[in-house]
């Protein structure tokens, strides 16, 4: 999202474009440092939990992907593309969560990637749970109800589709 580069409109923007361009290098270098704005312990915890979730997921996915490409050879990626165009790619995935679990036992790289993806999918729910806990602790009834409602609708949606 390089807003300085994309913007061409407006009279006051050219200096901003130049400024943004010059400081891009500085921005990239400091990109990973927190800006120190969070004053709530809960928010810091959530941020860290998300980072852990994302890192764990990314590690598993990267390891699994590397394993997958390594063990089937890089040339296999062209073969896999053709099997992916069908609606039932037999080799390159697991059929169900149960399939994934058994695949994990056997060290199937697809299953490793799958576990990473599963962790990734669960990650956004963490802030909601952590918020619920903090609202309960603070006895913030309106927000306990609000958070429960959101969780309930999510679960209902999941069950409904099945």
């Amino acid at each position, binding site marked *: *999202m390089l*807003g300085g580069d*994309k*913007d061409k*409109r407006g009279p006051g*923007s050219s200096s901003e474009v130049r400024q943004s361009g010059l400081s891009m290098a500085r*921005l*990239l270098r400091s*990109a*990973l440092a*927190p*800006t*120190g*704005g*969070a004053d709530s312990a809960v*928010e*810091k915890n*959530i*941020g*860290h939990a*998300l980072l852990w*979730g*994302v890192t764990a*997921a*990314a590690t598993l*996915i*990267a390891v699994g*992907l590397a394993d*997958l490409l390594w063990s089937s050879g890089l040339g296999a*990626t062209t073969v896999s593309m053709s099997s*992916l*165009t*069908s*609606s039932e*790619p037999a080799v*390159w*995935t*697991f*059929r169900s*969560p149960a*399939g994934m679990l058994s695949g994990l036992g056997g060290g199937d790289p*697809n299953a490793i*990637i799958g576990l*990473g*993806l599963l962790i990734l999918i669960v*990650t*956004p*729910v963490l*802030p*909601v749970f952590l*918020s619920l806990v903090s609202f309960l602790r603070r006895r913030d009834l*309106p927000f306990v109800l609000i958070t429960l409602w*959101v969780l309930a*609708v*999510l679960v209902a*949606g*999941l069950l*409904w*589709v*099945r």
Partner: protein
Amino acid sequence: MIIPLLTLFLGVDIRHAIGASIVSVIATSSGAASAYFRDGLTNRRVGLLLETATTTGAVTGAFVTSLVSGQVLYVIFAGVLSYSALAMFRKRHSATPTGVADHPWSSHLRLAASYHDFSLQKTIHYNVAGVPPALAAMYAAGVVSGLLGIGSGVLKVPAMDLLMRLPIKVSSATSNFMIGVTAAASAGVYFARGDIVPLVAAPVALGILVGAILGARLMQRMGSPAIRRVFVAVLIVVAIQMAAKGLSWPLL
């Protein structure tokens, strides 16, 4: 944008492309959200409150499909996005909203908060206006995203920016958090059906995670007017895409 890339260029089956796309939405959301939360930008209270409306909309959206044709919805959506683009474009030079009064519901629920704007190097306190219209807009966003399969972020950010008068960085961060929650629900379904193919989803997820984390930190260092202008561009592109779909232009 991931879906056409995968289906048209790589020939991936549509269901698996959608699965990978949902994974990408979660990757963007969680990657960026970890930064936003640690920097105190996300307003969880506003986000959760609005999510009650969005999730309800997404679930009840299925009933709405039978009433209105998809084509009509696309065109209406294009109209709403264009209007939002125009409204946000008019505000393009403003950094942070001033003189905003809390809506009575905001005071009651204590939605107002403050955040540290890194680019301005100061802490800004903001109030939260327009709660009922924002809830209505979120319901519509939920319905639309459930029906048309588009991310609802394009409606969430303008609703928070224009209706609730939140600072644009807070709107982006909060909407980001909200989107992740809803995407997680859809992703669960796709995962259980085996529609998420590791070979396809893995590179998508990794690339986007890296991009999102860096992008989130960059966002905080950018000036708010610049962010708003980028968003206007995004709105215009999506509005054109929606109009094309609704009017059956051979554009995509």
